[in-house]
């Protein structure tokens, strides 16, 4: 392909489709919902061209189930939805977590709660991404802020899901999902695609939930000669239900530890003009772009403001934030909700600096000027 062809004006949702295809996605199951439907539509069009499968299920519960089934059968699988649909996916998301089944779930956030504001953006589902399904569980959630990042983080999401055998949530918001932006689509040979580890032992010796050193068990796909059981019950190495406290304890902790021990690999952040900053903004998604502009405007006024932009939302970059809190006097957390990330920032800061939320919940993207206003207001205090 020549260069010209690789640069496109893509909608955020379209970029997600392109990213998924580059990652080797072969299956999509979904149920339409604004503002994510274009992902399903793109998949419906493009998957059969490469011999992949698209299926529109009867609801989001079934979509999540089908995605897990297809992944068990060996296909990289994707589903996309928005808040109300995320609610419905929670139970089966937990099933994917406990059975360590790779898959990617997109949540294009719109205003909530409930049906809320279907065509307006929000970041109201950040905490749901972490805690939506019941019981102790880890999760990885990524949040791009540009159309280009949607493409690259979709690839990351698939890679993480395959590498760590876990569902990964891609948190978009209505602004970036529907926005169109110039994107350079990388050549397949220029991107790293990770595939799940296959077992190296013969079927008789295979223990589907016995972890390697990295905490992740190799995964045999159904239909490839390895016969085994998976269940939503807490299970032993064989995948069979257990009620042995030691086995239970070891299993649940491993689920967490496999993510925890790779936190360096998983956490992606960007520091912008933070080195000499006395005031830090922490933001992600479309809001991070407002915050970046705020930093520029503030610097013009001589204010030492910097930005920590999160691309990985979960696990949360507590250590980085803690360090930052020791450096700056003030952290402001602009987000399109009534204060979700700010809770994590407060926790991680351990009282080392002032932490101030700046929330907006009226369905409009936060703009740079209002954040600047907040900075001015706060430094007067």
């Amino acid at each position, binding site marked *: 392909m020549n260069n010209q062809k690789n640069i496109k004006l893509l909608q955020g949702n379209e970029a997600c489709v392109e990213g998924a295809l580059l990652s080797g996605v072969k299956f999509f199951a979904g149920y339409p919902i604004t503002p994510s439907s274009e992902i399903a539509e793109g998949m419906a069009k493009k998957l059969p061209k490469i011999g992949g499968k698209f299926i529109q299920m009867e609801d989001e519960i079934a979509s999540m189930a089908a995605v897990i089934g297809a992944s068990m059968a060996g296909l990289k699988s994707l589903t996309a939805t928005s808040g109300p649909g995320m609610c419905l996916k929670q139970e089966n998301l937990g099933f994917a977590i406990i059975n360590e089944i790779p898959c990617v779930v997109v949540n294009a956030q719109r205003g909530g709660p409930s049906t809320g504001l279907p065509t307006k953006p929000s970041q109201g589902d950040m905490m749901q991404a972490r805690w939506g399904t019941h019981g102790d569980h880890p999760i990885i959630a990524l949040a791009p802020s540009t159309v280009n990042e949607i493409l690259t983080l979709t690839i990351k999401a698939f890679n993480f899901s395959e590498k760590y055998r876990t569902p990964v949530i891609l948190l978009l918001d209505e602004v970036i999902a529907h926005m169109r*932006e*110039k994107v350079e689509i990388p050549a397949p040979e220029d991107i790293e695609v990770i595939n799940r580890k296959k077992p190296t032992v013969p079927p008789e010796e295979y223990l589907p939930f016995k972890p390697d050193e990295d905490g992740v068990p190799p995964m045999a796909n159904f239909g490839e000669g390895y016969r085994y059981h998976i269940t939503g019950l807490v299970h032993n190495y064989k995948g069979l239900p257990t009620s042995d406290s030691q086995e239970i304890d070891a299993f649940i902790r491993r689920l967490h530890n496999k993510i925890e021990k790779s936190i360096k690999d998983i956490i992606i952040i960007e520091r912008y003009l933070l080195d000499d900053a006395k005031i830090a903004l922490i933001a992600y998604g479309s809001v991070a772009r407002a915050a970046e502009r705020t930093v520029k405007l503030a610097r013009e006024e001589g204010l030492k403001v910097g930005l920590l932009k999160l691309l990985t939302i979960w696990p949360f970059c507590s250590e980085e934030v803690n360090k930052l809190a020791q450096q700056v006097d003030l952290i402001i957390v602009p987000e399109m909700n009534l204060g979700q990330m700010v809770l994590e920032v407060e926790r991680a800061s351990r009282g080392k600096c002032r932490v101030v939320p700046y929330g907006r919940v009226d369905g409009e993207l936060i703009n740079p000027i209002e954040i600047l206003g907040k900075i001015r207001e706060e430094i007067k205090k």
Partner: protein
Amino acid sequence: MKERLEICLSGSGGQGLILAGIILAEAAGIYDGKEAVQSQSYGPEARGGASRSEVVISNNTIDYPKVMKTDILLALTQTACDKYVKNLNEDGILLADSTIVTEVPNISNKTYLFPITETAQKKFGTKLVTNIISLGIIVGLTKVVSQEAIQKAVCSRVPVKAKEVNEKALLLGFNIAKDLRTKK
């Protein structure tokens, strides 16, 4: 050109403003090699109601993707004009459809009026090309993107069978712009 140019195309649903925004962004981003972001806001309902398409064009990476202070405003309805003109830059340009927008605020000496919809209907027998004529006028007036770029973008984004009429509509827009400029 300014480092960052902010364009707001406003009117009501069904006037093709989102497509116009996409074409403009594609012209800037793909064919002129700049950076470009297009976004839109839906009204309370997906169908009908107010519609707004925003394009930000820049030579550098674009951080905030939405219009902060409008440099170029297209207004195809009175409501849209009233609402968005408030956010127009001091030296911003307003292009309004004079058939529909009857009360034009006196805010800038760069206000241009033209009966765009009426012209579309008269010259092409359909209001559907209003958006493309508007684009032609805007590009003609402001050079926000090159004429070649917008031509290519139009061709790449409209259905094949509508290509010809849209190209003509665009050219008509260019010409209208010339007239408008000389009149000023």
